[in-house]
């Protein structure tokens, strides 16, 4: 009996690596600590009713962001481990297998479990407030999306200590990711982790399109929406067209592994190159899915801190929407070397270059917004400057890569690595940091510490260029991606050392951000009226921060773009307080959705179904899937899903929130 348990445990847990053992022990200790704290302070009930079952878009947004920052930490540690290994030739810090696992999980975590949830978190917090809505169109579905993301991420992360990490690259090309190339369980964790969180992403895409189309405050025309809302729309349209392709592709890969079909196998007529086409038909739109909201954030921040209307509103909308369409016609530029022939390569080279046009339009719009503006150099605005410079250079190296004949030289070299990190860090991450600092006071009622924020800002920026500029050169010198070591004769060491130093500077920058948040939570001044930066232009700044659960006490009546700014101007002209003018309007009972425990329970069942599929434990899969179906039926049969908040309660809440005026 004891031997049986021991056998099982040695197969179940990843063993034989001191670093992973350390991680296992610390994970176990962390779980014990969390359980202890929750029990000691009697917080279980609070956790369940206020957070785990909530359908409030603001709380869901906060949970998304917490998870994404944790994932940024894990992905970042992976990156530092890789940079350590590459700092000197012939190092044996990580062996080849471990290195493969680490670059795979680094990529997957950063895209799926860091960038996506950070983006969804900002959608959730900001979009309903910007359009004057009480919640998203489908609050229940929204909660479901979050928990599917959460359990998908857990399933993926658990592979690191249980069963073994995936190690076939972040997009898991077959035949390497097939059963013969990767007989372990890592690929199955990869497939089910992404599949489960992908269902959540798809639902979020649907949810936010419906929210933006159907839930806008009366009077707000499409062409009067704030630019972040437009960028959310562009991103979500791309999500609903791209994510089903990912779902099918990974499903087919799983069938190849689990059932023995021949979609992507080398025998039986399978076609591995079809996988690469399919995955990039999702994968290229995916990078636009995450960058488009960053463009929206920039537009909001630039116009707020230049105290001017955004320059070229219509061209901005046109640029966002055209990128979301053209993004579907560029996928083959990821494999010009496949041998599709000159005609195909030419088409994809040109479509890729075409994307630079709307992007250029945006950059000029931001610059012209600043011209003659009264710019305040707050941290969010600093991130905007960093973004514009970094993204433009990154974009230009992208145009270099799009030149198909030249790409035969750059393909899969460190030049490519430097390029996509420049657009993903310099674009997505810097942009989201701008958004996070900009909307932080809306969520918590106080601003983040500026001084520490600027430390983090400079360390990120210096670290970035020190880390990635040498990599462009290393690419030209012939260093290819995904190699775990190199010989001394290659002459790559000096630049690699520089690059590693840069990576650690960015690691230090992250620590400054953690310090910034911790410090601001302890020492801060609460917001007086909700217009935290004093120059808010859009509706979210018209309500108190933190925002009451029903968002708007009175449904706002919108008359134009930057409605809140206009209202403030009108009030000033009339010599009255804008808040008094608002408070004069009568209140009505507010229709709100009720909390539900079904999304959490149903996603837990999905987690166990996924876990069972990974281990091929049908005794776990079948009951879990039945549990999923029962949850769906239970939801369908429950009719008591919403309620009205009485006027007296709204009055009381508003008086408490506005009382500090």
């Amino acid at each position: 009996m004891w031997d049986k348990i021991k056998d099982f445990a040695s197969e179940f847990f990843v063993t034989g690596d001191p670093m992973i053992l350390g991680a296992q022990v610390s994970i176990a200790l962390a779980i014990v600590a969390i359980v202890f704290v929750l029990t000691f302070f009697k917080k279980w009930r609070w956790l369940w009713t206020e957070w785990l079952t909530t359908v409030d878009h603001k709380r869901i947004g906060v949970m998304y962001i917490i998870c994404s920052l944790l994932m940024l930490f894990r992905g970042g540690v992976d990156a530092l481990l890789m940079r350590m290994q590459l700092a000197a030739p012939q190092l044996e810090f990580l062996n080849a297998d471990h290195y493969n696992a680490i670059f795979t999980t680094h990529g997957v975590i950063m895209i799926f479990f860091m960038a996506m949830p950070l983006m969804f978190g900002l959608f959730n917090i900001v979009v309903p407030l910007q359009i004057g809505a009480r919640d998203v169109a489908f609050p229940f579905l929204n909660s479901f999306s979050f928990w599917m993301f959460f359990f998908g991420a857990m399933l993926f992360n658990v592979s690191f200590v249980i069963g073994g990490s995936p190690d076939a690259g972040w997009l898991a090309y077959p035949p390497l990711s097939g059963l013969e190339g990767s007989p372990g369980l890592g690929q199955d964790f990869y497939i089910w982790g992404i599949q489960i969180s992908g269902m959540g992403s798809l639902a979020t895409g649907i949810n936010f399109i419906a929210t933006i189309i159907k839930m806008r405050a009366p009077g707000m025309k499409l062409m009067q929406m704030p630019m972040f809302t437009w960028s959310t729309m562009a991103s979500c349209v791309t999500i609903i067209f791209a994510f089903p392709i990912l779902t099918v592709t990974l499903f087919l890969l799983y069938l190849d592994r689990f059932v023995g079909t021949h979609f992507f196998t080398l025998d039986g007529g399978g076609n591995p190159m079809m996988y690469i086409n399919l995955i990039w038909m999702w994968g290229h739109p995916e990078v636009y899915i995450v960058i488009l909201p960053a463009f929206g954030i920039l537009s909001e921040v630039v116009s707020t801190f230049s105290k001017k209307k955004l320059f070229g509103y219509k061209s901005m909308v046109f640029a966002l929407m055209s990128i979301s369409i053209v993004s579907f016609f560029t996928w083959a530029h990821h494999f010009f070397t496949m041998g599709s022939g000159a005609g195909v390569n030419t088409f994809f080279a040109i479509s890729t270059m075409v994307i630079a046009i709307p992007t250029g339009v945006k950059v000029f719009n931001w610059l012209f917004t600043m011209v003659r503006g009264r710019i305040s150099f707050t941290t969010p605005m600093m991130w905007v400057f960093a973004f514009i410079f970094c993204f433009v250079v990154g974009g230009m190296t992208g145009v270099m890569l799009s030149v198909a004949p030249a790409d035969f030289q750059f393909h899969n070299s460190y030049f490519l690595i430097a390029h996509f990190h420049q657009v993903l860090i310099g674009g997505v991450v810097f942009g989201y940091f701008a958004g996070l600092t900009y909307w932080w006071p809306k969520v918590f009622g106080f601003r983040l510490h500026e001084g520490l924020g600027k430390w983090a800002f400079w360390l990120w920026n210096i670290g970035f260029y020190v880390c990635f500029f040498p990599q462009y050169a290393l690419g030209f010198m012939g260093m290819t991606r995904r190699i775990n070591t190199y010989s001394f004769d290659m002459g790559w060491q000096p630049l690699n050392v520089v690059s590693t130093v840069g990576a650690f500077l960015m690691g230090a920058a992250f620590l400054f951000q953690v310090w910034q948040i911790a410090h601001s939570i302890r020492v801060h001044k609460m917001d007086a009226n909700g217009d935290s930066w004093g120059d808010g232009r859009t509706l979210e700044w018209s309500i108190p921060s933190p925002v009451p659960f029903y968002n708007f006490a009175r449904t706002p009546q919108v008359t134009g773009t930057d409605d809140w700014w206009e209202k403030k101007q009108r009030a000033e002209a009339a010599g009255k307080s804008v808040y008094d003018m608002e408070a004069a309007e009568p209140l009505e009972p507010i229709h709100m959705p009720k909390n539900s425990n079904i999304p959490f329970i149903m996603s837990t069942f999905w987690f166990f179904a996924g876990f069972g599929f990974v281990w091929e434990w049908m005794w776990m899969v079948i009951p879990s899937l039945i549990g999923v179906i029962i949850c769906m039926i239970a939801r369908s049969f429950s009719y008591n899903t919403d309620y009205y908040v009485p006027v007296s309660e709204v009055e009381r809440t508003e008086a408490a929130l506005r009382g500090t005026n």
Partner: protein
Amino acid sequence: MAHVAKQANAAHGNGHHDEHHDHEDVKVFGFWLFIITDCILFGTLFATFAVLRGSTAAGPLPSDLIELTGIIVSTFILLTSSYTSGIAVLQMNKGNVKGLITWLGITVLLGAAFIYLEVTEFIHLVHEGAAITTSAYWSAFFTLVGTHGLHVSIGLVWMIGLMLQLKRRGITPVTKRKVTIISLYWHFLDVIWIFVFTFVYLMGVM
């Protein structure tokens, strides 16, 4: 949250009925968006099938094994079920709960007959030596046709659940929206089947 527990019954006045109607409309709109995603899902499977059309790896060919007669019968059954689900919606618009439930029931029976025929066809194919693992062609065939079949089966469970709700609650704005949505789903599956019938069966045999 304190406010969750508190129910403001007094507020359920007549003035809020419009808001309810609006919200049901939003859900129908959301379902149209879902149909877009499902179109892409099937589109990807059709593309996969098209790429692997000729990859039979010296195994059995579709033209040898597929018997068109049975497929034509099941096609007519599914098309008829789309028609009956349409009648169900007309009964709903007339306000006839009984007629609505009856026609939904007929739709379920036709859908179940379709699934029965599909399962028999699959068993027949496997007996003839064309399983999902036989070659890339048959992998794509079973996945595409099977995904459609899975959609129909989910629709059946859904429709039965809806019939129970209709029996208990009658025709309300909420149940009305639910019937509208499932009939959209059902017609959508019918359209997909027409493509399956054309590309997989007719073109596979010819």
